[in-house]
């Protein structure tokens, strides 16, 4: 079966091991202010400039829930096709740390705002469904800075109290590639919804990765290790790779796996033990008495449902059905909202097939080279559409179009003007072409004779010569037609 080929297995002697992965993704809620206070959440501000009395846990200060963050969490739940819990409870997770001013984090433990849902992954060998266990809202902690002073640790509370969504997957992932696809899909859904910007450099998206291994065909899960706070997809993949192999080696050597929390060292590319199960914190969760249970009505949820935009899965389906794109093309074009918007703007006035190829091919390559996002593209959707129309109506050849495209990348110029200014218009006048072709045949008499005596391969040579002489401007279809006649 083809499925077996893409299975991610770790081989040792006679044994094959399957890797079981579950993710706890921490996604920062896109919101002007924090989960329980009115301080700003803007990234990059001077340390401790976005800290309210509540965030710094001064005596007598009380949390007040930010309704917008609740809406964002519910929207995300809808995007994950999940059950929205009309009643959820905020709990206190108690532990001491210098960047946790209250001495507890307000989180949701027993009754999260969002229950079970699912995410569909597009893998090379087909679709895969990954279960979502839950989504809950919680506060972020502040930041401890250990490297500014040899003896002291500095604390920045700007992040303290920022709203996070913790999205917990079921242990349904089986390979680093699936993890890659899962995180990207999750990010795509949240970006469509505007609930999380997914910016991993700024820490808006990070994950705790749970990894265990088991012999292929086994039903029970192995003992898992949790790799804390990994902040890029690449590191997640590297950490899983390392951790899975480490566990397999232990088992092969007759050891058992200790359930523990580990850290991924990105420089050494290895995971290291942080604390064992025995040392695990007892967080003493209990409902926060400063907050009443959070109750939302059906109307509230319905209203939010009506605000949900078309999401990647539905958009992909529409693109395939309406525009006859391949699943591969559709997957790429819907991967983020900006790309699909760009695509839909281009095809408003131009050929779908050509537009798809140009966006996925030339445009993506050029943007990649310049390290630009599609919204930063030097070529507007309108001008790309014009370029495609110039190809379609025969004004320029596909080859010339690439030259025009390069000029357009320098600055968003109208392709028609570039064609005119540079004299790149295609030669489609049969008479002019005939003259050109006659000359080429004259100049290559011997080859023409060889062709006529059966060396058909030489046809390409003649086409090439004609194109060369025309400076690439000759209409290739016409050249073919006339050459065939003349030869």
């Amino acid at each position: 079966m083809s499925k077996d080929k893409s299975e991610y297995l770790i081989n040792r002697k006679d044994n094959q091991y399957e890797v079981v992965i579950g993710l706890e993704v921490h996604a920062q809620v896109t919101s002007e202010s924090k989960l329980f206070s009115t301080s700003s959440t803007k990234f990059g501000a001077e340390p401790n400039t976005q800290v309210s009395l509540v965030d710094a846990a001064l005596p007598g200060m009380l949390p007040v829930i930010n309704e917008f963050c609740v809406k964002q969490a519910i929207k995300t739940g809808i995007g994950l096709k999940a059950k929205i819990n009309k009643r959820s409870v905020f709990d206190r997770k108690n532990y001491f740390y210098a960047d946790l001013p209250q001495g507890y984090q307000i989180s949701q433990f027993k009754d999260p705002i969002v229950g079970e849902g699912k995410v569909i992954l597009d893998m090379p060998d087909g679709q895969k469904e990954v279960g979502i266990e839950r989504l809950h809202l919680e506060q972020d902690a502040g930041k401890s800075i250990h490297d500014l002073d040899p003896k002291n640790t500095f604390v920045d509370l700007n992040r303290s109290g920022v709203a996070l969504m913790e999205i917990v997957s079921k242990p349904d992932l089986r390979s680093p590639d699936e993890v890659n696809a899962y995180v990207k899909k999750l990010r795509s859904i949240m970006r469509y919804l505007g609930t999380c910007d997914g910016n991993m450099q700024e820490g808006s998206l990070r994950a705790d990765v749970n990894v265990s291994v088991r012999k292929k065909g086994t039903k029970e899960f192995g003992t898992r290790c949790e790799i804390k706070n990994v902040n890029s997809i690449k590191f997640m993949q590297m950490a899983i790779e390392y951790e899975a192999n480490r566990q397999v080696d232990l088992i092969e050597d007759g050891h058992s796996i200790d359930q523990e929390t580990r850290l991924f060292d990105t420089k050494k590319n290895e995971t290291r033990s942080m604390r064992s199960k025995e040392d695990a914190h007892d967080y003493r969760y209990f409902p926060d008495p400063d907050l009443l249970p959070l109750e939302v009505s059906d109307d509230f949820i319905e209203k939010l449902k009506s605000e949900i935009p078309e999401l990647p899965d539905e958009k992909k389906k529409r693109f395939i059905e309406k525009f006859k794109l391949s699943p591969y093309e559709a997957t790429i074009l819907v991967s983020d909202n900006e790309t699909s918007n760009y695509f839909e703007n281009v095809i408003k006035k131009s050929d779908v097939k050509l537009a798809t190829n140009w966006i996925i091919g030339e445009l993506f390559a050029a943007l990649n080279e310049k390290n630009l996002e599609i919204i930063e593209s030097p070529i507007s959707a309108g001008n790309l559409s014009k370029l495609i129309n110039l190809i379609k109506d025969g004004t320029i050849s596909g080859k010339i179009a690439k030259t025009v495209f390069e000029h357009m990348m320098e600055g968003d110029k109208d392709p028609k003007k570039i064609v005119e200014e540079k004299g790149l218009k295609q030669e489609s006048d049969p008479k002019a072409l005939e003259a050109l072709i006659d000359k080429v045949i004259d100049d290559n008499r011997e080859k023409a004779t060889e062709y006529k005596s059966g060396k058909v391969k030489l046809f390409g040579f003649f086409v090439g010569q004609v194109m060369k002489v025309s400076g690439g401007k000759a209409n290739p279809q016409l050249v073919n037609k006339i050459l065939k006649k003349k030869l």
Partner: protein
Amino acid sequence: MSEITKQSLSELIKNIKDKKLSSTEVTKAFVERSEKSKKLNAYVTEDFSAAIDKAKKFDQNPNLDLKLPGIPMAVKDLFCTKNVKTTAGSKILNNFIPTYESTVTQNIWNEGAILLGKLNCDEFAMGSSNETSFFGCVQNPIDKDLVPGGSSGGSSSAVAAQLTPITIGTDTGGSIRQPASFTGIVGLKPTYGSCSRYGIVAFASSLDQAGPMAQNVRDCALLHEVISSYDEKDSTSIDFKRNNYVKELTNNIKGKKIGIPKEYRVDAMPKEIEDLWKKGIDYVKDCGAEIIDISLPHTNYALPTYYIVAPAEASSNLARYDGVKYGFRADGENLIDMYEKTRSEGFGAEVQRRIMIGTYVLSSGYYDAYYLKAQKVRKLIKNDFDEAYKKVDAILTPSTPSSAFKIGEKTNDPVSMYLNDIFTVPVNLAGLPGISIPAGHDAKGYPLGLQIIGKAFDEQNLLNIAYAMEEKINFKNKITDWWIK
């Protein structure tokens, strides 16, 4: 006109409004008496000169439409007061000066009152005798070396000794009503959600409630009217229609049904308390109200439930006092060492005891057996009251199982200390309003209080019953000024 400090709040307001007294005269009188009363140790922080300045400023352009025009007032040191040190009776906050004002005190200043200073209390309001304060015991003006009750002990002492015409305390398990009872004054614990908790140093969030302490019921009603408000900054604040408690105050309680819960006849209750309760029943009958025997079957479980719920919340609420951001810090080898030293040196023994109890009952493996079970029992206790209120309008009980005891008498026996709250604690667990009014004296001449428990949000009815009874009881507090001579 009688001596200024002997006047009730209502008299003082009338005299200021009638321009017979200025705010400066009144403020100076209370400042002078407070200065002479340092032996009581009622104050943690005095703000006397600022108070006199504020009074002078008030007199320059007096706004006599306010409810507390130019009235000086000291408040419990659990309320955060902007630019005035707020300690919660603890070493760990000994250097803490808030940059903000609690909603309750802000409401008071908005009505024209003037801060005299901050009153002593048990550390983080954990205590029933004011003996756990880092700033030392408070003397009860009734007699030398007698506790004033707690945790609002500085408050009760200050009102009874007339160092402040009126004050506010906080009540988590009886901390307003028990000290009121011990000092012969009136103390009201409002319905949970009636007064904002914003800016009050938290002890147990689901139980804490601020309330007025006064010389009489009318004054109490007036201050309650000022402090009770809906506040968006407190998520547990409740937006209900508040009465004009003074305007609607009446001694006509004819036909009201008053419940007498049989479970409050606890074992070994002193005869004096039993007799006081009987007298109370007679007063109520005299007022034309009807007495109905009721049952609150889970009363016995209230105290153990309270001593699980309150320490659990406290253990978490007090985690923020870690030496990192503000307050006392002891140097340590590393972060953990600093935490341990700061909290061992910064918190007193009773606070540490409750943090440990609270941490224990929330620990995994014990949570279900203690905290979760306590929450279920709490619900049953509330249900008891709900059942009772189908038959009665209010409930009458003693405020405390005894009169005030001597300083040091119970410090080595925490359980006997906790038993002091046996009649007051169920009220907090059920979130109901309760008021203690002075109702008589024991053989030693120490005051005894009766408690009236009302329906949620029914403070008006509660105050009316207290007002009617007060008239019948005609209590006179025996204050000899022993500490001044």
